[in-house]
Every structure is written in structure tokens, then in C-alpha cells.
């Protein structure tokens, strides 16, 4: 027998500071303008796979449903195509809000497990922070190792073909003065 989770929400389940935090992020101020018309969800080309529609993400963010929002697949499916924002009748900066939520999800390690996109984002950031430049092979390798080890084995033939055609260089490039980059990045993070 499966356990039955509680679905009702007590105010103590919700995080009232969460919405303030999101709203304080530059570009996310007008989250309050949303009248919940759902046009964003309908305009979104990816909403086909989302667990919560973009409209619902906004509603939940506004009401402090921190856990649900940060662990939602929706954030990581967002392709940043800006369709929602372009058509939003209230001019809410939905894409910016999605970015802010993604950052929080990574910070708080709340993103859905076994889901490649947040891992990709994290690995990319870690790698670039360290070397100043991306190296596709190493980033992709890290992501698949974490997300689906078995899949990595299956991908070997493709990887091999790409390697011999020099489409997936193994060489790690790096820039000079990576320490300065780190300072810049940590300053930026401090701001966010």
C-alpha cells in the first residue's frame, strides 16, 4: 500500500520570505502584476512536459510554496525563449523569474534529482569558474556520470565518433588570471 501524503497546505508550510527574496531580484519586481490568466503557460512551447505550468509557478512563488517551486521540473525545462514574456498581458518578466528560481534551486540544492539540466548548469559553472573556459567533453562527462551512469556507457560509440572527428576535444583550455574571474564571479554571487 502506498503512503498517502498530506496535500493541504498550512501557512507554516509556506515560506513568506521566499517571495520577497525572488521579488527583490532585479527584473522580478513585477511578479505582483500577474492576474493568473495563464497565457504564459499556453504560449510556452515546452509546457508540454512541465509538472507545474509557468502560471502556477508564479502563483506558488507569490504565495511562498518554496519546496514545490524549487523542486519543480518546470524551472529546468524553461528554454528561455521569452515567448511567455513577449505576450504576457501584464508584462511580467517570467523568464527572469525562472532564472531567479533556478539560481535559488541550485543554491539550496533543491533541484529534481536525476534530471540533467540543473547538473549541466552546475557543472558548466564549476568548470568555467575553475578554468575560465568551457570544455564540452569534461562537462558532459561529469553530468552523465552523475545523472545516469548506465547511459554514459551506452553513449560510448557516439562519443568515440565525435572524438575521432575532433568534435569533442579532450584538451582543457584555460584563460589567464582565473583568480580575477573567481573574484568577479563571487562578487556577482554576493549580489544575487
Amino acid at each position, binding site marked *: 500500500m502506498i503512503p498517502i501524503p498530506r*496535500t*493541504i*497546505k*498550512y*501557512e507554516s508550510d509556506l515560506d513568506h520570505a521566499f517571495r520577497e527574496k525572488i521579488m527583490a531580484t532585479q527584473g522580478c519586481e513585477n511578479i505582483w*502584476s*500577474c492576474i*493568473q490568466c495563464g497565457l504564459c503557460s499556453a504560449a510556452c512551447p515546452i509546457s508540454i512536459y512541465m509538472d507545474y505550468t509557468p502560471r502556477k509557478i508564479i502563483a506558488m512563488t507569490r*504565495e511562498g510554496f518554496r519546496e514545490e517551486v524549487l523542486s519543480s521540473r518546470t524551472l529546468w525545462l524553461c528554454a528561455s525563449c521569452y515567448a511567455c514574456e513577449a505576450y504576457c498581458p501584464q508584462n511580467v518578466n517570467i523568464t527572469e523569474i525562472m532564472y531567479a528560481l533556478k539560481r535559488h534551486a541550485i543554491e539550496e540544492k533543491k533541484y529534481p534529482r536525476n534530471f540533467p539540466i540543473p547538473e549541466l548548469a552546475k557543472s558548466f559553472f564549476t568548470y568555467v569558474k575553475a578554468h575560465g573556459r568551457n570544455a564540452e567533453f569534461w562537462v558532459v562527462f561529469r553530468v552523465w556520470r552523475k545523472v545516469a551512469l548506465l547511459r554514459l556507457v551506452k553513449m560510448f560509440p557516439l562519443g568515440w565518433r565525435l572524438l575521432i572527428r575532433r568534435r569533442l576535444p579532450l584538451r582543457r583550455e584555460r584563460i589567464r588570471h582565473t583568480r580575477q574571474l573567481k573574484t568577479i564571479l563571487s562578487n556577482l554571487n554576493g549580489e544575487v
Partner: protein
Amino acid sequence: MASKNGDIPRIGVYVCHCGTNIGGQVNVPEVVAFARTLPNVVVAREYKYMCSDPGQMLIKEDIQKLNINRVVVASCSPHLHEHTFRKATLEGGRNPFLFHMANIREHVSWVTQDPEKATEKAKAIVEAAVYRIQFHEPLESKHVPVHPDVLIVGGGIAGITAALTLADAGKTVYLIERESSIGGHMAKFDKTFPTLDCASCILTPKMTTVKDHPNIHLMTYAEVLEVDGYVGNFRVKVKKKPRYVIEDRCIGCYVCIEHCVYKTPKHPSEFDEGIGLRKPIYIPFPQAVPLVAVIDPETCIEFKSGRCPKKCQKACREIVGRDAIDFTQKEEILEIQVGAVIIATGFQIFDPSRIPEYGYGRYPNVYTSLEVERLVNASGPTGGAIVLRDGRKPQSVAIIHCVGSRDRNYNPWCSRVCCMYSLKLAHLVRERTGAEVYNCYIDMRTPGKGYEEFYEKLLHEGVHFIRGKVAEVTDWTINPEEAGKLVIRVEDSLIGVVRRIPVDMVILSVGLEPRSDAEELRRLFHISCSAEGWFLERHPKLAPVSTYTDGVYIAGACQGPKDIPDAVAQAGAAAGEVLSLVDRGVIELEPNIAVIDARRCSGCHVCIALCPFSAIAFHAEENVARINEALCKGCGVCVGACPSRAISQQLFKDEQILAEIEGLLMVD
């Protein structure tokens, strides 16, 4: 066949094509040819549009050249052009009631599929008209003069607006208000949406203008007792309740109130919705008009025991020198005569104690929206401070929309103003307390000029909007966060979860209802109510302020829930109708009324009881019933009911109707 009035009927029949409206379906030439064969028909013609000037000219010329003395036009509904052709008949030189209209458009061409059958039906209808018209007699329309004075019942914003418009036009207005001051509900509000204008700042000048206007007779603390008469000539009896304070002498100085034996106010103030207290002698609010004290005999010791030292009276006499208090005052009955009446008696709020789940009356911190209006009002009992019953400032407030509205268990209608006033209260609460405010609504209804923009302003102020109707307000708590609070249970339907929200204060946005005594007023003025109890307008689209009783108009929320601009617009419209009536000066009475043959009347009273317009009175001396021509609407109820066949109806006499039926049956 000679007609009853001796002349030989010479009938002209005119069949209209109405473009292709009739002509496309009915074989008009065939109908015309058929008409020519009918008895006493001298001429029959067809025309593309009989209502056009050349069409009418045909009739006028035939009357003059062929000496036609009866006219039948077969065309559209009499609602459309009866007036037109009666006029043409008159201009031709005949009494306009020697005309009859046969409707072969709405009754034939528009509703019949088969052209052949349509033509047959058209013939039958024309034949019926030709048979009928032989029995038509010349009738004279009577005219009665219109008394130029006007009665307005209700001194809220609608009544005030109508009174000022009429008084400025130079008409004498009697404004009757049941409470001791005019102002109505609007006087209780702090701000008005969406501009957040101070309600009394815009209302008070109007109220004082009413009082000072030379053309307005203001009667407060008064009620209509009896109404008699008809459009242009109403006689109205008004009861002035005793205030036990002589209005002309009182200067509203508050000295009597200060000297009342009650040192502090102990009785719930009606004006303050029970949130504030008053003494037995009181002035309901500082801007009251007239600014005159009133004694409530229910709470005054003198009236209850007769053993009060009457310090108030002494103070008035000795300190103010006005001697305005008179414990022996009696109610007064006044009679006034007016030509028209505007009813603007407004609404009452839904009593939320009818919904036990919301705990109103059980939990002290559950308020009605009107109570909160007094609470936020700068001149209210708390001086505008929003505090709970124990004096604490609320840190979270829930506003529940649609309380008693959109609910078949209570009132099925939408009360139209609650969404907007809930937003206004949300704004005021947030502005003055910084509390978290939760608005629980079903549909956000903000469809007015600047209203959507106001909704957006509220969104930006950080007010929570939860789409869901609250099921319950309870003090049963289940976690420490909820302790000592009221908890609302609501589905956040746009997220799809049920939420429990603990709050300090709950505001119930109560709906608007017809006043509980609307039915009595309805009967007094012979107007109608809809099933819900709102006064019924003559036509929901095109006559929104008229009633089925000529000369009686309605304005404002007594006709249905309405916000201030809509009530004001209606009041202006009602004033416009009244001015139009009074400026016309006379009323033409349709002559198709019932008449009693006094020789046949047995005085049995049957007709009197049945007449829906109270148009029949009993004439005791002659022992017969008599019909007031101005009141009779020609409905025919009395005609059918009279056991002595003493009543007949002009234009619908037995012989006319029977001839019509006979004609209708002649074509097979």
C-alpha cells in the same frame, strides 16, 4: 350595413409590402384583390412601404377624395406604426380611432414557411380587421394636467442627486427620509473606490445644499403612509415620527447630549453599525443633515420609567436657551400633492449570521464589511484606527468575497459592488496596519472605469488574492502558528491545493439585498418587484428607471445592486424622466379604457377588488362603481369579471371582438 353611429362604413384597405419583408412571402396583390370583395370596402391598395410619407399620403387622399371613413392598414406590429397611421387618419380628417391595424408581418410573413398558406392567413387577418372596423366609434383622448411638484422617497445618494437636479430646474421637491439624517449608506463609508475620494468630503456639500435649497422640502424621520391618485396627480400621506426634539429650535450644539444622565454612551450606535456607542439622545454623525438631536424612546430613561431628571431638557433650556426638547412630541401626518414620484430607497446588507460556518456573531473578530467601513472611517468610533475588539492591531486579515451572494442557499445574484469595496478595504487595511491581507474571491469583478487599474494597484501592494470561496472560519487550531487566531479554510483553486490560513481578523464582504419592507412600499405605489425583491423596471434595457406605473420612477440600488456612479446616473435619469413629464404639463390618456354603464351596475364590488391598478372606486351615494379614467390601463379584467355585464372596454367592445373573430373564420 350601417354602423352603430349611423354612418355607412366606407372602408379603405392598405396592404404594405414592407420591402420584401411581407411582399417576399405573402402574395400582396392577391390580398388586395380579396380585400376589394369584402363588405363596405370602397378601396384597397398596396404599397411598398405604407409607413413612408407617400404611403401615408394615399390614406389622406382617399379619405378626402373617396370619402373613406374607416381605415385598415395591413402591415407590421401596431407597436411600430399604429401611432403613424392614426396620425395619418387624423390628418386626413377622421377620428384616429376609426383606424385599425392588421399585423401581417410578425403574425404572418415572418413566421409562416409556405407562401400560399401565408397569403391565406394574411387574407383572414385582413378580413377580421375589415369586419371589426365597422363597429369602431370615434373616441376622444382625454388630457389631465400634471402637478409640477415631485416626491422623492429615500435620502441616500440617489435621492439626493435626483432632488438637486429637480430643484435646480425650479421644481418643488419633497424629499422623504426614514432615518433622522439623509446620506444613506454612502455617509457611512470612509473612502470611495477607485479614486479613494473621501466619501463625506464629496457627500456633505451635497447634503447641506439639499437642506439649504429653497425648492426642497426635506422631511427626515418620516415615512410614506398612503398613496392615492395617478400620474400627474398623486396625493401622498407622510408620517413624521417624533424625534422629541423640535427641529426648528435645535442647533445641533451637543449640549443636551453632554448633559444626558448617561455619563458615557452605552447603546450601540445604528449609524456606526454597533461598532460605536451612543446615548439615548444623540446625533447620528457629525455631518448629519439636518444637524438635529433625536431621542430614542427605547433606551431613554424618561420614556422607560418616566423618572428621569431630564437633564438634557434643562441644559437645552438653561445653557443653550433654545428649549428644543419636547418629550410630549407626537407623530404628525402631512398630506402632499405631487405629479411624479421617484423611489430611491436603496438596499440592505446581507445578514451573515445566516451562514453559521463564518462564525459572525460567535467570533468577535469576524466583521461585516460595513462594520469595517465605520472602523476605517476617520470620524468613526475608533477615529480610523483598525483595531480588533481587544484593541490589538491585526497582523493578518482575510477578506471573504461573495458572502451571501452568488449562492443559491442565500442570494443567487452577484452584488456587483463587493469585489471593488473589498479591494478598497484591502488597500485601507494594508495602508494603515501593514497586515498581510488575503482576498478570497471567486471571480475578480472589476469592470468599471479605472476599476481594473485599481485591481492592479492592489496586486502591487502585495495583497494576496486566492481564487476560492472560503468554507469555514474556525478557532479550532491544529498547530502552534494558528494558536489564538481564526483559521480560514479555502481552496487556492489556481494552485489546486486547500489552504488553512490563520488570521487575526476576518472581513465578510456581505452582499446587497432588497430592503425587508420593499414589498410594502411596492404595494403602496402599485409597482412590481422581481422574484428577488428588487423593484422592477419597465424595461431592463430601454426603460431602466421607469416602472409599470406611470409617474412612478425608481433609481439606485432599490432596483438592483449598483455602485455610486451607476446610482447617480440612474438618479439623474429618473430626474430627467420627471422633468420631461412635468415640462410636458399634460398627460394624454389612451381612450381604450373600461367604462361602466351605471344603469346596469349592481354595486357588487367584484371589479373593485380585482382591478390591479386600483382604478375603480365605489360611489356610495349612487351605489355604483366608478372608474378613474386616468388610472385605468385598459387591461380588461373588470370587463370579464362583471357579473352584470355593466362594464365594456373602448376599442375592445364585445361587438368589435366578435366581428373580428367572425371575419377571421370566414376565410377557410
